[in-house]
């Protein structure tokens, strides 16, 4: 939806007459669609696990591209232009996934009451100073490079040559990080714990607390967005 005016309409009409006929990209779209489906069917026979990764990855790529979802912007826009619409969308995604992850983890813990944290489905890693340090480096790089990890992948698909450079940088950086890992492990990481909330306060309280926190953040983001709207006029 746009808010147009007579001046803009006049400019648009004038420009539309000058614009030359566009090339038709549909054949490429059809060819790639065919390839995607063929690969999916082949993977079902060859490696069922890969086929799930493949189809979900495709759907994620489509969703990210179509909604212009950008994690970098969700962090950057509140700081730069006072807009939180993307941050709110990320929070919504978290609310949805929290509920789903909760059910999956609860099922796993009921099936195996003596579980180790790392055996549960989910993402568990030691948390400590290294997490903060890495996040600061990551956040800085994300804004400077104009895209996060998912943004880089999406924009390569959109045809941004610049993001290929970011990807190369990413690979160099990750490799250097892995090469220096013994140092960081010795200084910071090895003594730090994995913190899984349900392990300390139980599954249901964790769910309630996390949902409350996410909803609270959502309302703060909403308020911040509206506040900035009035202040910048």
């Amino acid at each position, binding site marked *: 939806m746009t808010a147009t005016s007579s001046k803009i309409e006049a400019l648009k009409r004038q420009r539309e007459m000058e614009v030359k006929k566009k090339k038709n*990209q549909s054949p490429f779209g059809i060819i*790639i669609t065919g390839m995607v489906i063929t690969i999916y069917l082949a993977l079902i026979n060859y490696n069922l*696990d890969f086929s799930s990764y493949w189809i*979900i*990855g495709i759907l*994620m*790529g*489509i*969703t990210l591209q*179509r*909604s*212009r*979802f950008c994690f*970098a912007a969700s*962090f950057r826009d509140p700081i*730069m232009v006072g807009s939180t619409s993307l941050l*709110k969308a*990320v929070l919504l*995604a*978290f609310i949805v*996934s929290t509920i789903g992850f909760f059910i*999956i*983890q609860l099922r796993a813990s009921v099936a195996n009451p003596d579980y180790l944290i790392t055996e549960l*489905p*989910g*993402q*568990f*890693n030691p*948390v400590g100073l290294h*997490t*903060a340090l*890495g996040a*600061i*480096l*990551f*956040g*800085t*790089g994300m*804004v*400077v*490079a104009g895209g996060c990890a*998912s943004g880089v*992948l*999406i924009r*390569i*698909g*959109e045809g941004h*040559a610049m993001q290929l*450079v970011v*990807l*190369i*940088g*990413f*690979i160099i*950086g990750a*490799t*250097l990080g*892995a090469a220096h*890992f013994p140092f960081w*492990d010795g200084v910071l990481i090895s003594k730090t714990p994995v913190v899984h909330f349900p392990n300390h306060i139980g599954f249901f309280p964790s769910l309630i607390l996390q949902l409350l926190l996410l909803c609270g953040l959502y309302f703060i983001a909403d308020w911040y967005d509206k506040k900035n709207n009035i202040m910048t006029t």
Partner: protein
Amino acid sequence: MKLYEKVIKNPWPYWVGGILLGILNILLLFLTGSTWKITTGFLYWGAVVLEKIGLNPADWYYYSTYDHGLKEGQTFFLNSYTVLNIAVIVGALLAVLWAKEFKWKKIKNFKQFSFALLGGILMGYGTRLSFGCNIGAYFSAIPSFSLQGWVFAAFMFVGAWIGSKILFKYIL
């Protein structure tokens, strides 16, 4: 025609993307038993290059601790991360082609090139310290009820603030 415009051509509202991604995130964990991670795949691609030039990254300390190594029957190139990363690129390409909006965008100048490379290296190095990127240490970690995700989120704001300062000063 109306439906085509709405679904294929015009960008979706952000909240639609948010809800769909939340569902896909759950679906991935449910179907494969593992969470969405991106940068581990990038690291493995780096390892492929190192192997090609005759090094043996698999012997590195990194790959023998914290479950960082390869799963049974996977190589640095052929693994679930590669499949997922390429699928995300192809998915985006598909969406752009359906909307007939694909365009190859060249690198504008040397400045853009250097900041892109620098930003990439900063992000890549950061991910090894924090065990993941904005997906692995954030988008998958927070729903897993792992403190890691919340710490990562808070300090990513600090980083984004520093990045914004750099952007205003040197890039704009």
